[in-house]
């Protein structure tokens, strides 16, 4: 087992009456892409800001690289890169100057800094816009600049807070690929998002959060194994008689059947060839149907089953 990069024990954070983090625990290992997944307001940003000592907290112990993290732990901060939820660049400085400025807050040596800035610009692929002012950049390019500003100093630990919000698909892919590349180059990544697809795509381990609590942690596959659903079959079909619905319910591994708006949903908790079996039954009943597809469980299903609500509002 590799070393812990971040450990959080019993973290409690209150905003006046609101308990934003409630005895929260976390352990992130070196080399992980750790995903914090949770609906809006679940406390992802608060967790990050507490770990970074930007926020004071009421209780708990936070360690980074094995040392306690304090507001003036500049040695630790030197190895951390942060890409915040809000774009944090200066409108008055060019793309190059913005990156150079923030990189210069970490790197003293001029030659090294110059090289790092150039590499960051290449990394997010904005060479063409080097001399642009941020106002002239599209939303996606701005996000890429924001990322470059956060990672130019080659940190060992990188926090990314919803870096793909309001980003076009091309930039989004560029960003996600970039994160994986950073990880391959040796950085440990903490990634927050409420897009489960993204988290599933890149994260090596995922924590699902709700109301300031850790609901569950594991790889995407592990999380999905925690719930009984293994497959959901959707069939578009007109005027399905109740008698047939009852017969479908009798099929093996079916634990739930829904029929609304001419869409039949059959929920399975195991079994093979489920699709063939249900279609076979419909054929015997002499019923014709439209579109048919099978869905594997998503993280949303995991969240739904554990908390009883949807991940996205």
């Amino acid at each position, binding site marked *: 087992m590799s070393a812990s990069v971040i450990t959080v024990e019993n973290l409690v954070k209150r905003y006046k009456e609101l308990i934003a983090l409630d005895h929260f625990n976390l352990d992130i290992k070196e080399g992980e892409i750790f995903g914090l997944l949770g609906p809006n307001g679940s406390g992802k940003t608060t967790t990050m800001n507490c770990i*970074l000592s*930007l926020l004071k907290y009421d209780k708990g112990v936070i360690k980074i690289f094995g040392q306690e993290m304090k507001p*003036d732990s500049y040695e630790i901060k030197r190895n951390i890169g942060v890409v*915040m939820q809000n774009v*944090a660049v200066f409108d*008055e*400085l060019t793309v190059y100057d913005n990156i150079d400025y923030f990189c210069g*807050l970490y790197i003293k040596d001029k030659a090294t800094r110059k090289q790092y800035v150039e590499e960051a610009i290449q990394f997010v692929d904005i060479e063409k816009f080097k001399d642009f002012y941020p106002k002239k950049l599209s939303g996606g390019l701005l996000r890429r600049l924001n990322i470059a500003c956060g990672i130019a100093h080659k940190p060992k630990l990188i926090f990314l807070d919803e870096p793909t919000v309001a980003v076009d698909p091309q930039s989004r892919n560029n960003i996600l690929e970039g994160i994986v590349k950073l990880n391959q180059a040796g950085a440990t990544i903490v990634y927050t998002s409420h897009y489960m697809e993204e988290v599933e795509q890149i994260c090596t381990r995922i924590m699902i959060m709700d109301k300031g609590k850790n609901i569950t942690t594991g790889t995407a596959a592990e999380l999905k194994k925690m719930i009984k659903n293994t497959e959901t079959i959707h069939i578009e079909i007109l005027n399905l008689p109740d008698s047939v619905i009852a017969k479908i319910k009798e099929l093996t591994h079916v634990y739930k059947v829904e029929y609304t708006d001419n869409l039949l949903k059959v929920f399975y908790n195991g079994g093979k060839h489920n699709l063939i079996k249900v279609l076979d039954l419909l054929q015997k009943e002499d019923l014709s149907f439209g579109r048919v597809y099978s869905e594997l469980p998503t993280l949303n299903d995991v969240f739904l089953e554990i908390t009883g609500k949807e991940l996205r509002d």
Partner: protein
Amino acid sequence: MFLHVYKYRLKTIFRSRVDLFWILLFPLLLGTCFYTAFHNITKSLEEFNTIPVAIVCEDDADLTFFKAYIDALSSEENNILSATYTTSDEAQSLLSDKKITGIITFKDSIPSLTFLNTDSTNTSVSQSILKELMDSYIQSLDILSNVEPEDTESLMAVIANLGQNADYIIERKLTDGNTDYMLDYYFSLIAMTCLFGSYSGHSCANFLKANLSAQGMRKCLSSTKRLTLILGDFFASCTFPVISNIILIIYLNYILKINLGGNVLLIILTAAIGSIIGVCIGLFIGAIPGIKDSLKNGIMTASSLFLSFLSGLMVGGIKYKIEKVVPIVNKLNPATVITDALYSLNIYDTHDQFFTCIAILAVTIVILCTLSYLMIRRESYASI
């Protein structure tokens, strides 16, 4: 690190339109407006011509003192009167030929005036100047009666004083009293520019505090020491208004050729210290959490203009009225202290008064800096 922080903060300010306008452009524009407004006044002063008069002595009264006064007024330095001593008849004919503005008749040690038109509502500027010059002579007779005739030194002092008074009379008459405060307008303008430094102080606070801006958050997270960040940003924020003031002062002094009086370097020093006060005010207001940016800007614009107003930006001489009623306001208002410092450079030979003002400004800076530092130094917040 400090230089890196300083350089980029300065770059940011120089690219900021708001700062450029209020701190650099606006004062230059206002200075130009003042200049055009006062230009006619200064011109009429330059175009002033000597007033020709005839002097008639009716008896054998002692003329020494009166003559000395007239000589002083006619001297090359003052050049106010050109006097001809003559007889009554000759004087009358000169007056009817309009060769002279009036006749001064010296009788019983008292001068009296005769003009061509007897209608007193229609006196010319020259006539009323003559009247005041004679009045001021008559008023000084009181003082003279206490002076021994042999004490020539005292006599000459009174004369010199009268001569100086004459200059004021002329200036006031020719400009309806406007020039009295003319320099005060420019001094208040410099004070206003100093206070507008609060704009760069405001953005300085904004970009330093993590709970005020995302940029501030990034700075807080970086591995640069907090003090380095604060000092770099602060000094850069001061540099810009100081430069603006230097440009303004050079513009007024060397391009518009307004004689600000005093040593230009000391004027610049005053403006530099004043600018730091402005930045500190902005820093302090900017660091207050929970108030909207636009409101903070409003507060700063309003207070800068109001304080400059109290120091004489719009109504000349207002600070003298305040001095009579609530003098403490003048000591607390940095704009007035700045104008006082500039004024004292202009009129006093010693620098005591000037350094008193500078000391007051320095104390203000220390207080404001301490308060702002306490509000800005934090890296960890209860709420973001």
